[in-house]
């Protein structure tokens, strides 16, 4: 287990906008603290990776869209993994997702989790 690796599992999606900024914020923060960070998107979290979707989700009315928090995390160097089963759940194809996301199976989630000192779920 590496002591500088952390993982955030994102299950919240567009139906719960107020739950969709903090996970990205925490991911960027963990990078700023010199951690290697992976975000794993599953259940409804995967919908935030659909092209154009995060731009329409606002955690706070009149505030910054989720896409801004997502881009900050991506720019910081967070690794984005999307669960293939959740893509099937939402009828999403690889070309439907934003650039910079890797599609992986559930077993990868377990492997990354086992290699991380901390796993958070939102």
């Amino acid at each position, binding site marked *: 287990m590496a002591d500088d690796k952390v993982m955030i599992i994102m299950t919240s999606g567009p139906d719960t906008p107020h739950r969709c900024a903090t996970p990205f914020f925490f991911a*960027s923060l963990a990078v*700023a603290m*010199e951690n290697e960070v992976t975000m794993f998107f599953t259940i409804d979290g995967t919908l935030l990776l659909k092209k154009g979707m995060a731009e329409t989700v606002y955690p706070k009315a009149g505030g910054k869209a989720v896409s801004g928090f997502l881009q900050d995390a991506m720019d910081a160097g967070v690794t984005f993994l999307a669960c293939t089963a959740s893509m099937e759940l939402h009828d999403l194809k690889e070309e439907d997702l934003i650039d910079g996301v890797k599609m992986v199976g559930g077993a990868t989630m377990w492997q990354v989790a086992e290699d991380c000192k901390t796993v958070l779920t939102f």
Partner: protein
Amino acid sequence: MANVRGCNLPDDLYYLVEKHVWAKPMDGGILRVGITAVAAKLSGGKLAAITVKAKNIGQEVMQGKSLATIESSKFVGPVPTPVTGVVLRANEKLATDPNLAVSDPYGEGWVAEIQASNWDGEKGTLVTGAEGVAAYQAKLEADNITCS
């Protein structure tokens, strides 16, 4: 105190311009470090927290690596250390009032004190004096940053 594009930049500090942090030599090889007025501006002007990583206290942190983190409602990022050294202490006042780093970034709003490991060797990698302020001005112009 020089005023460059609305940003206060004292010419007696040593700057790591790319990271918007400063260092000030104190007695006994100790350096006080903090964020510049530019960093305060870029962070959104109103901070939620500046936190020195607890694990860093008593440990050597390499130049450019994350010493602390800075958070506002719309921004989060590292505060890289301008010099390599052992972190002696964090400014505890920032825990209760992180905005001291905005209102008084070179005074009450300092971030940490560091026992420099190689000040003589690293001093040359920072900029200071009128030349330093000019170098910082060039960076602000290139990036089109103003503090006003």
